[in-house]
């Protein structure tokens, strides 16, 4: 049962939803026109008041991020949009880009006015061919309609939006990796500070925001901060670092689920509600064994943690890294957690950029140890070794430059802590479960 009228997904699936004509017919670009009459400070205040937190994974308050830009900077200031959506299980940005690109572009235009930027780059993962074509067409329509370019609507505001395609590397989703990649280099994340708001793209002040975040900005200007704040979960009084979880969120549901898909729900839905009310339950009458709350880098919740709300604060209570991208992957009780964890470890070993030793070596060794376990050659002490490696890599222990490594360690820590008996039983059995496809892929590297 949908609990709210969809806003972000309202136009998805409608005929010709990607065109400027239908978007304007449905009231599109009214928020932009309204924003042009507001001062940049007023827009930033509205976004701050709404409580909008970035939808890309870290959940940093968007309006607050914007205020970190230097005051009275001569420019240029850049807005880089992170369309490198690559976190396993995540596809909500793709749906927005393919089906309703103007909602995103309008948010970008409003945000550029707010941060006094005249240039925005959309960094788009190369695998999203349709998103590229749709966005390209939408941007061309805007130039033709005089909504992009010089002196937009006679207001003196100039804005260019460019599409920039990535090259299949997960690390480009890390904001400074994205910046390096956009500059034409290997996507090695930068040491911070300086943060991008001070020195980012082309060494100029830069804001990096997510696609869904931009769509939210459009609706916040349209409907007001109070509307946005009427949905979601207020800050947890027991967690002084929680800034609250407001607004609608696009939850991606996949894995062992009858109705996989992207669902728009106010922040704070539980995994159980998502699985049972939206996803139609687990196929073949099976039960849930584990749930990934927000992309694999957030770790795992076990079957007895399904009533924890999936807001920015919730997954942490179950020992997960956070809400991440709100990509919920359901694992049924017929599936081996040893196999699932190996899949996660292999992903991070493949995607570590190699810059920091603890991550480059840690991800590779976690994959090797899990391979050995799945070859039937594991020892019980391997579990403690895995936990030790996982716990010593990342920005939380302070050994790496970016958070990829924390995300690589988290599923390992969670899986071994929450499913230890299963791992122990598997190791004792000495079973070999490596499949032909896995051997083929390992040989390819």
């Amino acid at each position: 049962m949908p609990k709210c009228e969809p806003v972000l997904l309202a136009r998805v699936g409608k005929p010709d939803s990607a065109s400027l004509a239908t978007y304007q017919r449905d009231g599109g670009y009214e928020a932009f026109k309204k924003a042009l009459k507001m001062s940049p400070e007023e827009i930033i205040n509205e976004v701050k008041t709404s409580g909008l937190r970035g939808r890309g994974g870290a959940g940093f308050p968007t309006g607050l991020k914007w205020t970190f830009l230097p005051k009275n900077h001569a420019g240029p200031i850049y807005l880089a949009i992170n369309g490198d959506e690559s976190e396993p299980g995540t596809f909500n940005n793709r749906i927005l880009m393919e089906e309703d690109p103007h909602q995103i572009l309008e948010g970008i235009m409003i945000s550029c006015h707010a941060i006094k930027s005249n240039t925005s780059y959309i960094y788009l993962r190369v695998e999203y061919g349709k998103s590229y074509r749709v966005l390209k067409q939408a941007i061309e329509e805007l130039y033709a309609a005089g909504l992009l370019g010089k002196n937009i609507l006679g207001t003196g505001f100039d804005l260019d939006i460019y599409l920039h395609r990535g090259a299949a590397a997960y690390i480009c989703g890390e904001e400074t990796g994205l910046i390096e990649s956009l500059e034409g280099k290997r996507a090695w994340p930068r040491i911070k500070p300086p943060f991008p708001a001070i020195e980012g793209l082309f060494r100029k002040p830069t804001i990096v925001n997510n696609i869904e975040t931009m769509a939210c900005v459009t609706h916040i200007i349209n409907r007001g901060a109070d509307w946005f704040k009427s949905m979601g979960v207020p800050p947890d009084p027991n967690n002084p670092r929680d800034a609250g979880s407001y607004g609608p969120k696009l939850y991606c549901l996949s894995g062992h689920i009858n109705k996989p898909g992207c669902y728009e729900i106010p922040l704070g839905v539980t995994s159980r509600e998502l699985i049972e009310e939206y996803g139609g339950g687990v196929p073949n009458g099976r039960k849930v064994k584990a749930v990934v709350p927000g992309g694999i880098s957030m770790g795992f919740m076990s079957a007895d943690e399904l009533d924890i709300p999936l807001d920015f604060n919730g997954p942490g209570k179950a020992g997960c890294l956070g809400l991440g991208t709100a990509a919920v992957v359901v694992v049924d009780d017929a599936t081996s957690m040893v196999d699932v964890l190996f899949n996660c470890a292999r992903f991070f070993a493949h995607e570590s950029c190699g810059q920091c030793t603890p991550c480059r070596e840690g991800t590779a060794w976690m994959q090797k140890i899990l391979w050995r376990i799945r070859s039937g050659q594991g020892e019980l002490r391997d579990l403690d070794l895995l936990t030790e490696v996982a716990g010593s890599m990342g920005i939380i222990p302070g050994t790496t430059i970016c958070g990829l490594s924390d995300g690589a360690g988290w599923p390992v820590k969670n899986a071994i802590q929450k499913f230890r008996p299963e791992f122990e039983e598997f190791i004792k059995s000495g079973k070999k479960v490596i499949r032909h496809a896995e051997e083929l892929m390992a040989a390819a590297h």
Partner: protein
Amino acid sequence: MQAAKPVERRDVMAVLSEELKEKIRAEFPKYPNKRAVTLPALHIVQDATRSVSLEAIREIAELLELHPAEVHDTMSFYGYFRDEKHPLGKHRVWVCRSISCMLRGGEDLLADLCEKWNVKPGETTEDGKITLEFGECLGVCEGAPCVLVDEDCHPCMTAQKVDEILKKS
């Protein structure tokens, strides 16, 4: 860093046609410097020639006023780009192997396609028609297992469906 001096190399055939060079130059106005055109240039060249050869790297470097080593450094970081020893076939097929697709048979689909086309992941069929790869999360998890054929990702795939798509491509 000093830009590489253009070198006269009459012994090597130019890889980049004037048309490709024009396409690369058309990217310049979008960025405050030419180095940022590295990825766009690599895409333009690989799309047209199915790999980026050492000579192409030199020519891209010349256009972007970089050292060839700088272009190569960037290119080799991204597994997406192929050198001349590993050119792409006419079609590039990626089978997703990440979690949502793995849970729904993505890896077995990859093994099936390897057997069907007699290739290992990363290789191209003998007739040069298909390069088969594994991909990390292709972002079509609601349609697991998914397969990216050139520019478009297809949901709920089987080996037979992939074949049908390729026949129409």
